[in-house]
Each structure stands twice: as structure tokens, then as C-alpha cells.
């Protein structure tokens, strides 16, 4: 139905009606009429184009003037008719409707979801139109908030999943609002609230915000306590168990005594332990590089396998993006997510922001993001960690699969599809797929180059090899993809562990599940500032220490659950990383002092056989590590970075500095989240401008 008749009289009448309802001013009407004379356009279009009247005020008024209570859709396909309604309201153009219909056929999803995902209609307009179209009452929760007394805490998660919320009781009637008017939702509402329940429509964001507003304490508590309450043995809430403290105390007391009574033998013993440990560690890493270097290990999901996926059958995918004080990278992230080769209407993207991060919240609002982007505001509480925020957002996640991206991440567009394919190909007990990480600003400076070389080795060699050898995989911080129900079953992330990803990877393996690696890369921003890098790395190593302590509470159980290879792999890959980074400065120092002064003071703790092992470690072991560091560059075709591989010992020294900082924090501030500042790369402004331009 046309918004105007095209006749002046009718226009004047409609204009008067609008003035009468105080929706426009007389001067605006005069200007609109003047424009109508010149252009011949309809008065309604002019008023709407000028933005002088809200469409949702305008259309109901227009309908009532025409004698309709609501705009009645023609008989036939319901969704198509809703599209027509939106078109009739002028909310959607014919071309957009046509495109939406085509996408609906392609993606196999609801038209409304597509329209919202595309951002063609403002969310509030959309839901008002939907209410109008479906004959339901529309309730704006920001104006008419729900009655908190009706909200049942036990059902909060279901509210989030079904996007419903009990609103108010009016007389005998209980009103429930929903943003997802589907038969299952209606069935659930009636099951929960009785057949006499009244259903109204509201915006999904209003539901989420109201849920948060009313149930924040619950969500916060769940986010923090779920793992600690249900599986306390896996929680890092307690950094050291009593038994661990006892063992540590006895061990170091004995060591001190040993050092006092037989200092030379004790030092030789310590030296021997370190030398042999490092030797085995080198051996493990050599084996990992060997296994990871197998060319077949890279062929996981082919382009062909991705291309044969049917988009109609693709599941809903939740993408969590925890952010904190990173407004500058938000456009880059949004742009990267928009470019994901995945049906937008099946994306459930949660931008997880801290309540006190007004800067990023404001930036997100100003971006006017499409409906696929949901803002989740995490209330300010301790521990203020990324896993807690993710746990919090998990309450609102609706996907079958879920993944996490950092704010500065740029995943390869086909990553989600590759993961879906990988899950289809993988054994049933594979519940997590880790994508590879690398850096888009690799050549920015020496640090970013080294970081890139390290990541190339880590994700292109080590992790695939760990997967192949069935050794627990310490997941990388982002781009790990889970089956949603398993993630919830294992109580998601440990909010007290500052490398919650690594911990989750080991925990998953311990629980009998598998973690896989997919041949898709997410490009991140490599830390280009040394101090910022040390903050980040100290957190990682502290988290490794937490992870090691948590999973070594019951070594026999760990051994039984992951097998001998997994157990020893864990000891040397996680434990080895910790010990080698802590021991390295002393070993370097000894070597440098010896080299410069030819002193013999160390001779006493280096009997010949030990000296040979230590020299082997120093020269051959480290030489080999330098070599395999450059291998990553070969694999990624970063040939210009190969010479930088020779400087990796300096990088190891930085890691050691970070390790000692991490150790210090483990003792004093175990749950403190050293925030890594993103967006400091010199490429960031350029990427931001490009993203904004593309979005515009």
C-alpha cells in the first residue's frame, strides 16, 4: 500500500493529521508541500526522507487513516509478506527485499534474520514492524521495563537462548515479551507461563540488556564460580593446593640442606637435572618440528571441502569478541567479521565490553553495527579477566559452535566454514578446533618479526605435532572453536586462569575429548612495544604456571587420563617451557662470564660428562632451536625474516625476563590480568581507515 495517494488534498489532510498528532510542525509541512510541487514526490516520502517523522509513528497513523487497524499481509508465504510489509513501510527497498529473498534461499534462514544481519532496518523499527505485522503488542522495554519479580533465576539461560522475558502482570494476565516469535518459542512460553500467557514483541537487544540489568549478579556469579563450584579440581582459584605447598616446602628445604652440607654435589645435581631436562626438552622440540614438518599435516581441510558445504545446513555460529579499552581497533574487527564467508544471519557475534569501558562502548554505538553484533556489557567485578567476560557472554550465546576472537584479529574469511568441515571430518570426540595464528604487522620491527617467527613455529609446527602425538594442546588465546554444548558441559573457561585457553585445552584432553588444528590462520597484531610485550608474555607464562599447577594436582590421574605420551609431553612442553625460560638467564650468564673471563669458578659444577651435555645443549640444542625458528619463516614464505632467526637468543632472554615477572605475579597477584594494549601498531590507523571506508 502506498504511503500517500499523490493528491494534494490527501497530502494536506495527512499533513494536518500529523500536525494534529504533533509529529511534525506546520513549517515542516509547508516546506514538504513546496517540495512536492517542485518534485512531484509523495508527501510521506518527503517527510520520511527529511527525517521529520518517525516511520513507526507514521505508518500506523497512515494505516488508521486508511481504515486499517494493522497492515494486513496478503495471503501466501508469510515471510515474503513480512518483507513486503517492510517494503510497504518504506523500511526496505525492493532491491533489498529481493536480495534478502535470494539470501534466504541460499542460506536457509529467516528473512528477518537476514535483514537484521544486513543492517537494512533499524532494530527497533524492525521489531515494531514485526509486532504490527503479527498483530502483537510492541513493548519498548527501555520505556516500560519489566517487573523483576517475574524473572526466574533458574530460567535465565533459557531466557537468553529463546530471547524471551516475562514482562508484567496485568490483572490475571502475565505478559511475556520475545524477540523471536517462532513456534518453539511460543511453545516454550506457554509451557513455562501457561496457556493464558500474553505475548508481546520487543527488540532482542532490549531483552539482552534487561536480562543483564536484572540478572547481573547471577550472571557474574555464574561466570566466576561455575568451574570452581562444579569442578573445583580444575579451577585455578586455589593457586597451590595444600599438598602442593607441602611438597614444594619439603623439596626446597631438602635442597637447601643439600646445598649447605654438600654444596658441590648439590650444585652438580641441580646442574645435571637442568642439563638433562633441557636435553630432553630439545629432543621433544626436535621431534615436534619433525612431526610438524610433515607436509601431510598441513592438508586438513581443502578448498574443495569448503566449497561443497551447503550454506543452508551451516549451523549458527557464536563469535565472542572480548574487548577492553580498544576502541581504535573496533572498526577493523567489525570489518573482518563482516567479511567472514559465512551466512551473516547465522552469525551470533557478541562484542563483550566491560561496563566501565565507556570509551569502547561509545565507539561501538557510534559505529551503528548491524544486528548480528550484540553488545554484552560485563559488570565490573573481580577477577577482571577475559575468561570471566567470556563466561558471562556465554549465557547469551545461541550458536551450535562458538569461537573467540581478540579485538585486533583478522581471521581468514573461510575460517568458520573450514572449522565446520573440520568438525565433520574429525572424530566425534573432537570438541575443539584451534586455528593457526600469525601476524599482519610482522615486518614492523624486530620484536614483531621475532614474535611472528615464534608463532609460525608454534602454530605451524608444534601444535599440529602435538595433535598428531595426542599430547594436550595448550590452546592459543584466540580462534579456538568449540562445540557449544561441550563447552558448557566442561564449564567453559576458568576465570582465575590467565591463560584460560591453554588450561581449557589440557582440561578438554583430560576429560577424554580431543583438540584439533585447522589449516586456517587468524592474523593478529603482533606486539610491537617491548614493555607491552613483556606484560603480555608475563601473563602467558604465569598462566602456564597456573595450568601446570592445576593439572599436576593429581599427576597419576593426569597420567591415566592422557596416557604416557600425553603426560610426558605435558611435562616437557608446558613444564619445559617454564623451567627453560627460568633457567636460561643463569646458563647464559655463566657462559658469557666464562667466555669473557676464562674463569674456572664454574668448573667445579661441570664435571666433564656434564660439561659435554651442557655444551651440547648450548651449541647443538640452541643451534637447532634457532634453525627450526627459521623453519617457520620458510613455511610461511617469510624469507626476509630468516636472518632474524639468528637473533632469537635475545628474544629468549626477553621471554626469561617476562617469566620472572610472571613468577613474581603468580605469588603476589595470581589472577591479575596484565592487559595487552592493542592497536598500537603503526598499521592500525591505516587498517582502521580502510575498514571505515569499506563500511561506509
Amino acid at each position, binding site marked *: 500500500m502506498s504511503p500517500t495517494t499523490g493528491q494534494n488534498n490527501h497530502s494536506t489532510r495527512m499533513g494536518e493529521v500529523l500536525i494534529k498528532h504533533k509529529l511534525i510542525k506546520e513549517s515542516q509541512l509547508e516546506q514538504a508541500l513546496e517540495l512536492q510541487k517542485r518534485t512531484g514526490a509523495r508527501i510521506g516520502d518527503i517527510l520520511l526522507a527529511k527525517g521529520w517523522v518517525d516511520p513507526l509513528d507514521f505508518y500506523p497513523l497512515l494505516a488508521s487513516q486508511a481504515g486499517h487497524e494493522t497492515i494486513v499481509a496478503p495471503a501466501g508465504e508469510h515471510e515474503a509478506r513480512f518483507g513486503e510489509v517492510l517494503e510497504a513501510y518504506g523500511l526496505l527497498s525492493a532491491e533489498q527485499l529481493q536480495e534478502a529473498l535470494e539470501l534466504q534461499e541460499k542460506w536457509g534462514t529467516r528473512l528477518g534474520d537476514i535483514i537484521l544481519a544486513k543492517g537494512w532496518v533499524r532494530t527497533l523499527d524492525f521489531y515494531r514492524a514485526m509486532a504490527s505485522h503479527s498483530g502483537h503488542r510492541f513493548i519498548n522495554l527501555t520505556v516500560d521495563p519489566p517487573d523483576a519479580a517475574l524473572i526466574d533465576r533458574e530460567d535465565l539461560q533459557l531466557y537468553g537462548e529463546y530471547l524471551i522475558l516475562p514482562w508484567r502482570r496485568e490483572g490475571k494476565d502475565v505478559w511475556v515479551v520475545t524477540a523471536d516469535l517462532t513456534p518453539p518459542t511460543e511453545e516454550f512460553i506457554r509451557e513455562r507461563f501457561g496457556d493464558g500467557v500474553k505475548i508481546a514483541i520487543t527488540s532482542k537487544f532490549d531483552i539482552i540488556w534487561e536480562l543483564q540489568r536484572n540478572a547481573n549478579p547471577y550472571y557474574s556469579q555464574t561466570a*566466576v564460580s561455575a568451574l*570452581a563450584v562444579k569442578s573445583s579440581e580444575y579451577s585455578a*582459584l586455589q*593457586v597451590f593446593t595444600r599438598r602442593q605447598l607441602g611438597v614444594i616446602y619439603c623439596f626446597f*628445604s631438602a635442597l637447601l640442606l643439600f646445598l649447605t652440607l654438600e*654444596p658441590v654435589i648439590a650444585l652438580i645435581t641441580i646442574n645435571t637435572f637442568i642439563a638433562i631436562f633441557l636435553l630432553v626438552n630439545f629432543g621433544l622440540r626436535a621431534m615436534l618440528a619433525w612431526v610438524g614438518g610433515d607436509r601431510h599435516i598441513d592438508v586438513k581441510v581443502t578448498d574443495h571441502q569448503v566449497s561443497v558445504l551447503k550454506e543452508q545446513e551451516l549451523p549458527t555460529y557464536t563469535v565472542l569478541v572480548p574487548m577492553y579499552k580498544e576502541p581504535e581497533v573496533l572498526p577493523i574487527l567489525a570489518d573482518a567479521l563482516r567479511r567472514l564467508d559465512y551466512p551473516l544471519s547465522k552469525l551470533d557475534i557478541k562484542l563483550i565490553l566491560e561496563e566501565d569501558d565507556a570509551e569502547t562502548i561509545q565507539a561501538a554505538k557510534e559505529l551503528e553495527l548491524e544486528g548480528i553484533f550484540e553488545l554484552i556489557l560485563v559488570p565490573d567485578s573481580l577477577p577482571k579477566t577475559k575468561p570471566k567476560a567470556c563466561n558471562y557472554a556465554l549465557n547469551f550465546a545461541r550458536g551450535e559452535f562458538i569461537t573467540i576472537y581478540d579485538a585486533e584479529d583478522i581471521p581468514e574469511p573461510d575460517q568458520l566454514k573450514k572449522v565446520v568441515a573440520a568438525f565433520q571430518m574429525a572424530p566425534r570426540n573432537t570438541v575443539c578446533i584451534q586455528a593457526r595464528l600469525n601476524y599482519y604487522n610482522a615486518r614492523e620491527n624486530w620484536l614483531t618479526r621475532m614474535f611472528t617467527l615464534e608463532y609460525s613455529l608454534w602454530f605451524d609446527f608444534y601444535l599440529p605435532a602435538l595433535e598428531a602425538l595426542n599430547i594436550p594442546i595448550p590452546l592459543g588465546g584466540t580462534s579456538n572453536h568449540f562445540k557449544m554444548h561441550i563447552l558448557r558441559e566442561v564449564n567453559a573457561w576458568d576465570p*582465575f586462569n590467565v591463560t584460560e585457553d591453554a588450561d581449557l585445552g589440557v582440561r578438554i584432553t583430560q576429560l577424554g575429548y580431543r583438540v584439533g588444528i585447522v589449516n586456517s590462520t587468524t592474523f593478529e597484531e603482533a606486539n610491537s612495544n617491548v614493555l607491552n610485550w613483556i606484560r603480555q608474555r608475563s601473563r602467558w607464562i604465569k598462566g602456564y604456571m597456573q595450568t601446570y599447577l592445576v593439572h599436576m594436582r593429581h599427576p597419576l590421574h593426569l597420567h591415566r587420563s592422557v596416557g604416557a605420551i600425553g603426560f610426558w609431553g605435558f611435562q616437557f612442553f608446558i613444564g619445559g617451557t617454564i623451567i627453560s625460560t627460568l633457567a636460561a638467564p643463569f646458563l647464559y650468564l655463566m657462559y658469557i662470564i666464562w667466555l669473557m673471563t676464562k674463569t674456572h669458578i664454574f668448573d667445579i659444577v661441570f664435571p*666433564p660428562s656434564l660439561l659435554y651435555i651442557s655444551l651440547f645443549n648450548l651449541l647443538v640444542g640452541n643451534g637447532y632451536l634457532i634453525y627450526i625458528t627459521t623453519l617457520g619463516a620458510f613455511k610461511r614464505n617469510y624469507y626476509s625474516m630468516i636472518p632474524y632467526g639468528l637473533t632469537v637468543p635475545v628474544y629468549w632472554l626477553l621471554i626469561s625476563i617476562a617469566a620472572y615477572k610472571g613468577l613474581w605475579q603468580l605469588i603476589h597477584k595470581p589472577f591479575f590480568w596484565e592487559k595487552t594494549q592493542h592497536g598500537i601498531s603503526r598499521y592500525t590507523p591505516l587498517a582502521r581507515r580502510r575498514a571505515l571506508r569499506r563500511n561506509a
Partner: protein
Amino acid sequence: MLPGACDVETNVNNKERLSMGKVWGSVVTAVFLFTGALAGPEAWAVVQPSKVVTLEDLGYEKGSLIEAASANQTFFFPVPLDLKISSAQLQLHYNASPELNKHAYYRIYVNDMPRRTVSLSGPREQHVLNLPLQAGDLKQRFIKIRIKSSLPVTDNRCLDDRITAGYLHFRANSGVQYRFHGSPKTIRAAWELLPRKVRVSIPAGKLDEEVFNAALLMGQALEANGKKVLFTTLPVLGEIVIAPKLALAAMGAKSVGNNQLGKGINAALMVMKGRGFIAVTDPFVGSNVFFEQPWIGLASAGRYQVYPVSSKLEEGKSDRYAISLSDLGLDIKNSEMYRRIEWGIAVSSDQFPAGYFPDTMLLQVVSTPSDSETPVMLYVYLNDVLQEVVRLDNNGKKQTVAVRLNRADLKRHNRIRLLAQRKVIEGNCEGDPERFPIQIHPDSSLQAVPDETLPASMADLSNYLRKGVDIYLPRDYLSRPLSVLGLLSRMGANLALPLEVKKIHYFTEDAEVAPVGPFILVGNAKSVFKNPPVRFDQGHIRVIDKRGQVLLEASELPGITVGQLVQTDRYYGLWLMPWSLTALPRLDAMYSSDGDVVFADSTGVLLTLHSDKPGLARIVYADAQNWFDVIGRYRFWFFALGWLLLTVLIVHLYRQARRHKTLGSWLG
């Protein structure tokens, strides 16, 4: 051919040949200042009426052992000069294996003529043979004694060649005994008659530098001639007296014969109280002269850089010297080989100009052709390390074999063995087996090239110091010369040092010494050395092994002398630090040591080590405290502190764990 060259076709103990060069050098070495004949000595009571030159004097300290079935061994005994020999006899003390059969014998050739054949059969092992020598045998400078032996134990000659059941050992005391008429008339004759142990008398009290220097040079010359030198102070009379003319006159010593001491004459035979001696007096020139060709070069080699006439720069190769192998004693006569034949020579780096070392051996060889299945193989050994194996051409022509000597295998005194061998396919074991001629020609030579390497061990010092050396001595030693002269004399001889009077410096104890070239420093001086291996300013010195056990407590053994290789910015040198010189250290083993530090006392080198390779032993300073010592001393306090800190840490973590154990702290 030079005397001393070994005509050997046996596995005779080559080690003993090492010192041969030294021996024949000693026999002809220089004496003092002039060689004029002395007229009419009335008394020379000190000289001995007879003299025995033994195998030991020739350098065969353990005698000569023959184990091969057939062998030739040649000895050159020097004939004393300027003395009337009344009689001489060859006296052989030998042991022969009782396993030898009836055909075993040895034959003595005197100056290449057979003089006696001695059967070796019989059960007795020890024998003595006296063979009188004739006047005609003594006309040459040397008596050539060649012993050809055949030591079969069975009639099967094939077997004989491969077993060593028989042996013949000429003991070290074998030699030639001379008896003389009258007294020596020349200094050279007196020098010849010097006993093996020579006493050198010097004035008592503080010496003038020039007297000290003269005594040092004399001591070195005597030691270099194989004498054992004992310095004494006047009025004790030694065989040699070094003193100013005034002192000699005051003693009542009188010259013998025509060479009265006077202006410009500074050596003479003198007598006092019926005892004769060689007097060396002022002006103390401090240098030697030569007295006879062709030994001039060898006699003065180290001092004047004059070399054997056969040692010459290679034509067109200005940096390369060559010495004929025959001059080095290689048998260049035609030899006959049955299965194998061996040649040996001893080569000392002293035989080359200072700063050169043997690099390549060029052999000109002719061997009898053999079929291709049994080629003649030539094996070249340097100090028992196989350097090269060469398959000789099978055409019977003269061929050149160049063998590069490995620098690392070279020592100061080297032994080179050449072994030619061929496989005999068949032979008549009952008869005399067929033999094949083979000869190394006289134009074979040893080439030497400049040695620019810097000393890394004591063994390298001789080569380095031979280019010229400064000696630094505390002036205090002039007051107690006996404590150091013997040591330095022996060192000068052992290292073949080119001692020069003008390069002997005296310094006040603890003064700073800054060497201006290669040097030897004795005593305590302010160290200007870079990182000396042993520091004397760190207190008590202790040598410990790799397990920390004490090998040596240096300061608890007052008779110990520490020798170390040190360096300044530009030069290397030897620093000897004697704690006390009451008992002179014996440093003989030091000169061939691979270490850069030695600890020695009067019994010899106690310990040698290399400071850069402290695998077996290393030096620590017991009084010096480093952080490790301090920690060790207070380790129980450190333990207490460490344990306290550990406890505090654990308590802290425990309390933290208790606090976090309840979620309440997080959830409020």
C-alpha cells in the same frame, strides 16, 4: 758421512739416538779464547791419567739393544786431542740371550775393518770383551766401531725374521778407554780431560756482573758438552776457575807454559798448590771461538747463527733452508733388504737457524723393482707417528718422495724413522734368503721453513727464545750466585739459548721489569704480564685436581720453583719464581712439557699443567677469597636465611590459598 750417523738395519733403540747430535757436538765444542799450545807444564796433578768414553757419553744412556735377527750398529768414539795416548782398548760389556743358537755371533769392525768375531752361543748371559786398539786406529778424530750381529735362535731363517726371542745388549758403560803420557799442554787438551762432573770456582762474596756473566756462559758451555757443573767459591779449587787476574795473583796461582796471563790474554792453564786448572779471567769477553773445521758451524750454531755448510737456503726459495739427510746422520750407503729395512735419524730444531722448523723431507730413493703384487712400501715416522706411506715406483729408477711433516708432531728433538718393506712371496727358509738393493741418495734433504708460531707451551720455548733472549735477574743474585748459576747454566744448555752478555740484565727485587724481547725472568718482579697463569700476589698457591683434591701446596714446600710461560703485550717469556734456591730445582722435564706451568724442586718437575686446559689440574689461591668461599664460610647462615625466606613464602602462599579457597572472596 758425519760421525754418529747410524748404520742401522735393526730396531735398535732409537730413543738413545736422540742425543747423538748433542754428543758429537759436545765432543768438538768450543773452548776458550785461544788455542795456543802450552809449553812445559810441570804439574797437572788434577788431570786423570786415563779417560773412558762410554756409550752413555755418546748419548746411549741405556746402552744399545739389538733384537733383530741381523743388525748393524755403528758408534763413533772421539779421540782426545792434544794428548799423547799410550794405549787404548775397546771394552764391551754386554748381555746375550741364552736362547741364541750355535750360529749366533757378533763381529767388531774398527774403522771398517773386521777385527774380531765373537760367538754368542752358550748359557751365560753377561760378558765382557776387551779389544786392544792399535795406534793406527787413533789417527782419525773418531774411532768408528761397527758391530754386525746375527742372532738366530733356529735354523729356519724365515721364522727368525719374525721373532725376537734373541737379543744382544751392549751396556751403557761399554766404551773406549784411553791412557795418556804426561800432562796436557793446551787448554783444549785440558778441556778434553775434564771429568764428567766439573767444578767451577768463582770468587767468594758479591760478584761483579761480568764475572757472573762469564761463569754463566761457562756453565752453559759445560752443560752443553754433557758435563755436570758444580759451582764453588774460592779458595776451593775447581777444574775451572773464573776470577780477576788480581784475585788469581793474590791466590798465588801461576800460569803454566808460555801463555802468561797478561794484557788481552784472559785464559790460561794455571797451577796452584800443585793443582792445575783452567783459568778464565779479565777481560771477561764472555764469548767463545771455534777451533777447527768443519765443526765451526755446529759448535757456534746457536750463538752466531752460522749453520752447517750443508745447510743452505734453497735456490729460489729465500725462506727455506735445507739440510742434507746424510749430514743429519742418515745412512746413504746401498743397503740390501730382505723383507724390511729401517733407517733412523735424530733431528733437533737447534740444527736449523733460529725461527725455522723442519717442514718437508725430500727423499731420493732407488729400489729394486718388484712385481706389482709385492710393491716396496716406504713408511715415514716422525716421533713414532706415521706421517706418510708411499708406494715406491716399480721401475728401478731414482725417484723423489716428498713427505710433509706434521707440525703438531714436531718437538724440539725429533726422531725420524724410515721403514721400507716388501712382501716376500716365497723363499728358501733353509738357505740365505734373497736380498734386494735399496738406497737413499745423498741429495735427500730436510727442508725447514720459518716458524712464526708463538709459544703455547714450555716445549715451544726453545724455538722461540733461540731468536734471542734477554735474561732478567735480581741483583741480589750477585751476592749469592751459587743459588742460580747452576740452574741457569743447565737451562741455557737445555734450551740452546743464544746467551749474550749484553742481554743479561739485573734488577732490584720488586722493581718493574718490562721486557723488550723474548725473555727469561728469574725472581720476583712487578708483574707486567698479561694474565700470568700463576699469580704470586694472591697468597697461598694450591693445585687441585678435577675432584677438588689437593695435588700440591706450593707455599708449603719451600724448595719449589714455579716456572710459567708468560707474555707481555708483544713478547713471550719464561718466568721462574723460586721460593728459595737452597736446593736448585731440576727443570729438565720442563723443556719438553706441553703445559705452560711447572712446579719443580731439586728432584725434578713435580707437576706440569696448562692453564687453558684445566681438565686434570688447576690452580687455586687458598688465601684469596671469592664469593664462593664467602658463601661457603657462611653457608649455614645462608641456609637459615634461605629456609626462613622459603617458610615465609610458603606461609604466604598457604594463607593466600586459604583466602581463595572460598568463592566468597570473589562473589561477596
